[in-house]
């Protein structure tokens, strides 16, 4: 349990390289669960490594419990980390890998064994304890890497995509275990993931990064429902939010945006009044696939909900849902349909647009219009 403050942090690899991290400021409370997300190569692992003390700081400070630790040795920071690349000790068995840190802490043998058993059970690797890392499958290696961190009780956990190579079922289980662990120990956790569900369900706060910069920091709901800009909006959520460029017009029913489906029919969607000042101009409408669905009688009567009859493009059944693509204003828009209700490609279907949850962006600055 510790606070972690990152202040004006810069990182540059090599002397003349570009800034890999630029002016990162994050203040993490004791016991907080922070999730880092961002496109591949945006600097998440670099940031983690710097928190751990494994990469040199180009500029700025990292403070643990309000003490600047820039010059503190990694081993003295009391941090446990799961590496993206696993970094298992190739010369040791799985048991040895997990035991290593405990031995260094001079934990007694019986206690150590208990701890190893516990962790191994949790990660379902009991039967692998005597294997060498080279004899494990990818997911098994990843779990050992997890085990190495979980056996310890440090001040801060750093998890760098710890579940990426696990199957969905195991991932759900692990996610629950991590949640429980966090609730039980209240350790501060920084966690990198590309999994939407993990990010939404585990995080106290999510930090969205891009190109070494911090774009938004907020609760999962904030990030999801109230994104600061188009990038964040488009990045969180899968399938991603749909962006429709349309011009705002004043009509009898209030503000509307006009859409063209498949270059044939023209439709209009209601827009909230706060866009009044954009009348005559163009905005980007951000609407998530789950807001474009079959007509749902319950919602139909809500304000800003409209039903359009559109021609379906490609259908992608994903199991629980079927994602249908519709071309609007020359862009493919994904809608989420119920797989139980038959729909065919090319067919015209009534789709309900719930514009009440839609968000709007300035097409030039890509910033939210609030």
């Amino acid at each position: 349990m510790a606070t972690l403050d990152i202040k004006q942090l810069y990182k540059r690899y090599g002397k003349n390289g570009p800034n890999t991290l630029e002016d990162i400021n994050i203040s993490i409370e004791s016991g907080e669960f922070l999730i880092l997300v961002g496109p591949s190569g945006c600097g998440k692992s670099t940031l983690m490594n710097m928190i751990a003390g494994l990469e040199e700081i180009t500029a700025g400070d990292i403070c643990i419990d309000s003490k600047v630790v820039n010059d503190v040795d990694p081993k003295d920071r009391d941090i446990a980390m799961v590496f993206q690349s696993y970094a298992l000790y190739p010369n040791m068995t799985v048991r040895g890998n997990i035991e290593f840190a405990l031995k260094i802490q001079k934990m007694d043998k019986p206690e150590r064994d208990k701890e190893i058993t516990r962790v191994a059970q949790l990660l379902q690797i009991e039967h692998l304890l005597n294997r060498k890392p080279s004899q494990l499958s990818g997911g098994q290696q990843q779990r050992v890497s997890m085990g190495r961190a979980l056996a310890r009780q440090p001040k801060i956990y750093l998890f760098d995509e710890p579940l990426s190579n696990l199957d969905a079922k195991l991932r759900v289980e692990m996610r629950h275990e991590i949640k429980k662990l966090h609730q039980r120990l209240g350790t501060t956790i920084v966690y990198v993931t590309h999994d939407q569900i993990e990010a939404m369900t585990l995080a106290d706060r999510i930090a969205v990064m891009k190109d070494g910069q911090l774009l938004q920091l907020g609760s999962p709901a904030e990030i999801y429902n109230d994104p600061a800009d188009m990038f964040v909006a488009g990045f969180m959520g899968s399938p991603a939010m749909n962006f429709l460029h349309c011009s705002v017009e004043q009509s009898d029913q209030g503000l509307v945006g006009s859409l063209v489906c498949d270059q044939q029919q023209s439709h209009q969607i209601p827009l909230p009044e706060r866009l009044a000042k954009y009348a005559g101009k163009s905005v980007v409408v951000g609407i998530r696939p789950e807001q474009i669905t079959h007509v749902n009688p319950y919602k139909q009567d809500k304000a800003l909900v409209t039903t359009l009859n559109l021609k379906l493009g490609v259908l992608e059944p994903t199991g629980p849902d079927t994602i249908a693509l519709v071309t609007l204003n020359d862009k493919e828009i994904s809608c989420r349909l119920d797989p139980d209700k038959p729909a065919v490609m090319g067919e015209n279907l009534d789709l309900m647009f719930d514009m009440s949850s839609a968000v709007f962006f300035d097409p030039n600055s890509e910033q939210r219009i609030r």
Partner: protein
Amino acid sequence: MTKFSPGRLFIYFILILFCAIYLMPLLVMLLTSFKTLPDIRGGNLLSLPEVWVFEAWFKAWGSACTGVTCEGVKGYFWNSFKMAIPAVFISTLIGALNGYVIAHWRFKGSNLFFALMLFGCFIPFQVILLPMAATLGKFGLANTTTGLVFVHVVYGLVFTTLFFRNFYVSVPGELVKAAKLDGAGFFTIFFKIMLPISKPIIMVCIIWQFTQIWNDFLFGVVYSGSDSQPITVALNNLVNTSTGVKEYNVDMAAAIIAALPTLFVYVVAGKYFVRGLTAGSVKG
């Protein structure tokens, strides 16, 4: 960046201390080489020369007797190069190939062969002098540079194979697998993937082989021809005299001169002791 913490100071201290210890014999040799013979006979071996004379160096290089000719060691360098360069090159290459096969293209018996080969490095070279002489004689290679190169290759092979095999077992097998799938054959993988990541071990191998071959006296004297004697034979002739006058200053100078090419190799090789040649190759 590198701060001088107490730990680092200690490391520097140890490193420098050992430098001093290692350098002591060289210091003795250098001092001696600059002394006159009476100075050597009379003085303390770590005392500075009464007068610094460079004559011994010139003599060792150009006019000391190594037989009926008294032209110093300079003429022998070429002989040594003619023998060492091909021998080092061939044995390193074969060793690398062998190591590569034993580590990554295992077949039944390859390990057994490796074990047998290793055992081979323990046979005293004196044992093979005569049978090898007979063999070389049969093939008309007796007392030729080719024969000498052959002998060095054969007995160097064992070590180069050992070095490379033990290096290559640590290279992730995935790399070879990936290359195989990319359509690379045996040699392509070797030359394009394995050799480029073997720099440090190639250097170790060259350091070892070059030193062994350059400094070898036994094979050099026994299998070389009278006009292709390597520098060690010259050095030996210059230094070793049973009933003649000993000129220690010349001996020391000659020894240092004879070692220059090897030292040069060490300095050059140093560049290739680079870090992390397999880093970032495979996950886990």
